[in-house]
């Protein structure tokens, strides 16, 4: 990941967006055809999402985004749709790790302070989110150093290619 500052607009989602909301099991036959699979991202929850999302947009969710299945396809299709980062009040465990492993930044913050369509500027190194629309500045908690290191390399596979092992 070369850019540590990301800019884009917020697409708001509610609480408890499950991996079945993000990419339902009924599309399992497309999992070896990722570009086709990605067209169905969030389609039951935000109809037309794939056509509406613009490169660099942020997915801004409430509590417990990504609950459910361990399918890494969930953060993968979100990333493929062009989303630059996910912001949420809380994140389900497996999804959090999968997003980072896919090199998709995921930040915990008080997303009530962000409205749909707000322009945001995110500093990944500082963990700060500036809402350019409202002027508010939000802080996100720190992730464990091993996860920051994986994210910095652009994902787990890139991290392992470089380090050949886990370095704590």
């Amino acid at each position: 990941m070369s850019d540590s500052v990301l800019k884009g607009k917020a697409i708001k989602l509610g609480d408890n967006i499950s991996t079945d909301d993000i990419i339902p099991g009924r599309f399992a036959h497309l999992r070896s055809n990722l570009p086709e699979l990605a067209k169905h991202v969030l389609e039951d929850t935000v109809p037309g999402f794939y056509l509406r999302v613009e490169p660099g947009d942020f997915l801004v969710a409430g509590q417990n985004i990504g609950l459910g299945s361990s399918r890494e396809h969930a953060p993968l299709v979100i990333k493929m749709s062009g989303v630059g980062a996910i912001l949420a009040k809380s994140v389900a465990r497996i999804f959090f790790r999968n997003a980072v492993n896919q090199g998709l930044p995921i930040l915990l913050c008080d997303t009530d302070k962000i409205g749909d369509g707000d322009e945001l500027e995110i500093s990944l190194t500082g963990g700060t989110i500036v809402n350019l629309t409202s002027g508010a500045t939000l802080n996100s908690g720190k992730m464990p150093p091993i996860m920051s290191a994986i994210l910095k390399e652009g994902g787990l596979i890139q991290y392992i290619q470089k380090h050949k092992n886990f370095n704590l």
Partner: protein
Amino acid sequence: MGETLAEKILSLKSQNKARAGDIVICEVDLAFVQDTTGPLTVRQFKGSGFQALAKPTQTIIFLDHAAPSPSRQLSNDHMFLRSFAQETGSAIYEVGEGICHQLVAEHFANPGDVIVGSDSHTVTSGALGAFATGMGSSDVAVALALGKTWFRVPESFLIDLDGAFPRGVYAKDLILYLIGRIGADGANYKALEFGGEALAGMSMSQRLTVANMAVEAGAKVGLFPADKITEDFLMQHGRGDSYKSIYPDPEANYEQVIPVSLDRLEPMLSLPHTVDNVRPVTGVKGIKIQQAFVGTCTNGRLEDLAVAAQILKGNKRHPDTRLLVAPASRQVLSEATEKGYVSSLLEAGATILPPGCAACLGLHQGIPGDGEVCISTANRNFKGRMGNPEAMVYLASPATAAASAIRGEITDPRELM
């Protein structure tokens, strides 16, 4: 200071003092994939530049989610996984053998093991005292290659169980009750550890049901101590010598202690569209159902089929309700046939599906129609989970599902016992 079960296992496997909050690197005793997450795992493995598995005999591929395959694409994914097994020497369990978590419990999981699988319900083997957890494809790919992975050592909740299940109340009702009480993220990043005097009366089948759904409260693992019941189960499955007793230390530090008296539980239901939307059956009964599904890694075991068969024996499914039954493994199907459960189910009008995940995740074998209601013994009822976002899924025990299939509406099983 004493260790929780999670700390105890992760200390052993990381050869470190693993304390809640620490990041540790652990040996992995068993790593597995299934057919809908396996292809990405294999691609990530190859993409990392690895060719050889760290532990080929402790690596398994299960073809269970699309079994038999309903589409050309999924058949091709199966072919891809079969050739990977051949190239690397990993074990493979073919279509029809059963659900990965059931097979791992029957054949592989041992107390004190660290098990990772590219499926969230890998937590099931916590019933045997294994630190078993679901991960994504990249994490499992690296575990396959290095034979190890990293964990943040979870804080633990002790679920302190006393009493015994009343008539008509089962392990499924317990875990639904618990998830309703603490919420779908109530144990996010935590270990749920089950203890208390009630464990002496809880069979391995019941423990597997409870551990299976720990992830529905967000937990990383759902752990039971390894005791006499664990030892008996391992002996019955030909690996008695793998038994070792594992308990948390008496002075272990728990983030929360949640006492639950089994005597006070009643049949529970999880209502659409979240697993933590839990109510007693008594307050919900009467809703018409078009499909009842008994099976899955939560409730597709012999004891579950026995309960369903007992209620259905001599009865017929309601004419407006389809009844689908999927045994969790070939062994379960075979024993259920021997014991006459399959005959009772067939006479009641059930459709017996092949051992595997069946209708659980919306790929095949029982996708409900628009506006239809399905009562299911599975572990998830998210919108769209069973393949149709316009359908409603209620989660229940096999007894509640069987009783509801007879009446054609959500029914308290105690009325038919």
